């Protein structure tokens, strides 16, 4: 069965803290599990400044999910995001069509982080070093 490659970005209210991020993460995984989608990678971009105010917030916690799935996966993931209180906004984009999951190179894609994720990681590490 052919699948599509999707990416979903979720904006989480910074007030909900780690708990909110945890909840969204489990819901995303749940949505993928029930529709037998394949996760490629989940990135945590941390708290970023928004370009405009959203629900009274100037900042937001960003999660980025890349996966192989079908239209059912997107519907289920977006349904779950809609009923999660901590979520302010989400956006899904199709990247590629007609992918055979058996042929797909998961390992390289897993290591291939986005620039924003790399920067967020470096920032988090720098902070940890200061604390240590």
């Amino acid at each position, binding site marked *: 069965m052919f699948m599509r490659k999707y990416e979903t970005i979720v904006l989480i209210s910074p007030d909900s803290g780690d708990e909110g991020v945890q909840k969204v993460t489990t819901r995303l995984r749940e949505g993928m599990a029930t529709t037998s989608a394949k996760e490629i990678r989940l990135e945590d971009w941390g708290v970023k400044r928004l*370009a*405009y105010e959203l629900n009274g917030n100037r900042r937001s916690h960003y999660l980025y999910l890349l996966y192989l799935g079908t239209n059912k996966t997107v519907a289920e993931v977006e349904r779950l995001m809609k009923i999660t209180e901590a979520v302010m906004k989400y956006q899904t984009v199709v990247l590629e069509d007609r992918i055979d999951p058996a042929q797909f190179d998961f390992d390289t894609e897993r290591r291939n982080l986005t620039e924003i994720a790399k920067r967020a990681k470096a920032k988090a590490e720098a902070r940890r070093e200061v604390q240590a």
Partner: protein
Amino acid sequence: MSRKSNGKKKTCPFLSDPQLAAELDYKNPEMLKRYVTDRGRIVPRRISGVCAFYQRKLAQEIKRARAIGLLPYAAKGV
């Protein structure tokens, strides 16, 4: 008489630099900012010199970036 300031023809930055074209993505707001005015509007092609093909892609990516708060929507007023 030509109304153009000089005879130099603008060339599309994306066509002349494949590296830049590869960076064209809504998750890269720093790069997109170059094609947005300080009020947040998309720079017209006659100013930036971007070709029609890449202007369409650029507009799409800018709009995606706006939707998730990485770029501002156009500010109100003139």
